[in-house]
């Protein structure tokens, strides 16, 4: 009988070699924050801390045998998590470090698709470390850097001391263009408060969008206002230079192939909305990296929250709408080759009469 054991939160750390992952990991392992972390790394490399809870594991991508090319999991993680969870008293949370070129999707999907892993752990957040100086180059090289940003809940924009303020603005605007929903932290030497990267509950439907009080509102308010999805930032900075109105359009920034589509509407007819979102994720799944949404369902007292990774879709009633809160539906897709016009029209067609 599996007693209602609490699920251990898992943070996924992505980022290119040299972006500062090791520095951040060292801080997680050595700072006095009162929590114990098990860390799964690809190579012990430079961590330089002797700790029984650092596990070296070869990245092993397994395609699921269901004919869906985007249904991939990290086979090695299934085994390592199973092993770690046999002795759960040793740590409070797990951090998974991926290699520089890693696709974050199989890591994340492991925590949704494998029943054993899912029953014992829960994905907390995907954190991408980005080297402010080298990001433009990385984006030219390949899709991976872009995927890592597109997929992230938190982006740590590191090594800001190596670029000019203008370059920094441009890099941040690029990140925003790729992923308008992520929270961005500007840092030097990965000096982000650990509370901003750990225990975020970004995949927790009851918390995910609460963390982002302005979820999907960026293009609604004043463009020179200094509030964005990252407004709980420890050191505010101005967004004046940002082209916020470009968020939901194909990016005009060179070398960016990911785009986001932000949709908003009124109350939805559940009989139309659910078949629609099922169909969209089935048909467009391979192109969708992430989706997040808050849906107002006609005749429903509660907010309905949704999130997805490729073809995996999760949704739940979150909480009652507050008095005076506008019953509106908001949904963002981040991905490639998304037909914005068709998504918008079909989304709007799901609105209750």
């Amino acid at each position, binding site marked *: *009988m599996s007693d209602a054991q609490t699920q251990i939160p898992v943070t996924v750390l992505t980022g290119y070699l040299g972006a500062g992952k090791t520095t951040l990991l060292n801080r997680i392992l050595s700072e006095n924050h009162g929590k114990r972390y098990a860390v799964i790394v690809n190579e012990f490399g430079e961590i330089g801390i002797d700790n029984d809870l650092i596990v070296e594991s070869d990245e092993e991508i397994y395609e699921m045998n269901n004919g869906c090319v985007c249904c991939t999991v990290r086979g*090695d993680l299934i*085994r*390592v998590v199973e092993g770690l969870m046999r002795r759960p008293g040793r740590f409070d949370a797990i951090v998974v470090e991926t290699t520089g070129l890693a696709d974050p999707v199989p890591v994340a999907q492991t925590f949704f698709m494998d029943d054993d892993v899912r029953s014992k752990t829960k994905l907390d957040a995907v954190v991408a470390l980005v080297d402010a100086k080298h990001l433009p180059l990385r984006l030219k090289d390949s899709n991976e850097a872009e995927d890592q940003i597109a997929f992230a809940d938190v982006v740590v924009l590191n090594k800001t001391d190596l670029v000019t303020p203008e370059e920094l603005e441009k890099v941040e605007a690029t990140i925003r263009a790729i992923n308008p929903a992520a929270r961005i932290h500007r840092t030097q030497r990965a000096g982000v408060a650990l509370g901003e990267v750990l225990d975020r509950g970004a995949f927790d439907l009851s918390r995910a969008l609460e963390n982002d009080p302005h979820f999907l509102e960026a293009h609604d308010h004043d463009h020179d206002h200094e509030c964005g999805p990252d407004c709980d930032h420890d050191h505010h900075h101005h967004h004046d230079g940002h082209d916020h109105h470009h968020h939901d359009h194909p990016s005009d920034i060179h070398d960016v192939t990911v785009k986001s589509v932000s949709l908003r509407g009124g109350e939805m007819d559940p009989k139309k909305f659910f078949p629609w979102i099922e169909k969209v994720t089935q048909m467009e799944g391979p192109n969708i990296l992430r989706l997040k949404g808050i849906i107002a369902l006609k005749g429903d007292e509660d907010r309905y929250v949704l999130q997805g990774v490729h073809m995996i879709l999760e949704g739940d009633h979150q909480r009652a709408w507050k008095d005076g809160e506008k019953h509106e539906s908001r949904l963002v897709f981040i991905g490639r080759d998304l037909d914005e016009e068709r998504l918008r029209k079909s989304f709007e067609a799901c609105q209750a009469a």
Partner: protein
Amino acid sequence: MPTVAPLDLDGHCVAAVFLNDVPHFALADGAIHRLDNGHKTVQANDGLLAAFHDTANDRLITGGEDGKVFAVKTGGEASELASAGRKWITSVAAGPQGAVAYASGKTAFVRFADGKIKEFAHPRSVEGLAFSPKGMRFGVARYNGATLHFPAAEGKPVELEWAGAHTGITFSPDGAFLITTMQENALHGWKLADGKHMRMSGYPGKVKSLSWSVKGKWLASSGAPAAIVWPFASKDGPMGKAPLELGTRGNTMVTCVACHPSQEVTAIGYEDGMVIAARFADAKEVLLRRPGNGAITSMMWDKEERRIVFGSAAGDCGVIDITA
């Protein structure tokens, strides 16, 4: 009426076995407990992940987080057989002539009785290991199939392909069939004589426990609300035949199976800790242990066919005496 002598331990039991008729319980923390005129303990790995009962030598082979392989014998002797560096040892197996195989990352190792070690590098992770009952041959479960090695001879391995991730592996006792457990809810099999495939699917959960019945006529498996028992008596194995479903329960899953040494009967352990025995011929069931605190993870019959040692994920282990 069967009686249960409980042994409440603190931690996940990886393996429960008899060594020289003494019940032994290998826990995930590497402590090996035994009921040998009282409760005694010996430490093996620092973090124990995999264990295999070496029948021929009556010892337990263990592998763990410390990258080491131990051999545990009755009387509290735990000796280190091999060390493979800082990576976890994720699978172990014992074979003929005292040979032991173990896996670390993408490498499978065979340690011969004289202490010589041979390495077998693979392009992908070595997920599961098993020796063939005949000859010096072992199989590796891997992504997209299985690989057969002949460690005593030079020469190319035999590759058996089937799409998907194969996580565990076993040979039939006559060496005619090779069966793998998969990441998906299915078993796959090959008839080794001609490479014919056998698909055994329809499980609602992953299959983690397999047990061959006497003379390999049946293969019992976990992963469903009943023990799924496939017929292997004919030369083509279970193809075109329906399996037996024994001990079906509505509210829980079978997590462990252990076939009786000489009769067509299997012990069945469930997620809620219950243990029963079921007879293949008429599906008759006998309750052996009421539900406990954790899923049954391991079981073994003793040589006298009188007792069953069992371990659970919550540490509530024990010995069932079926004759008492």
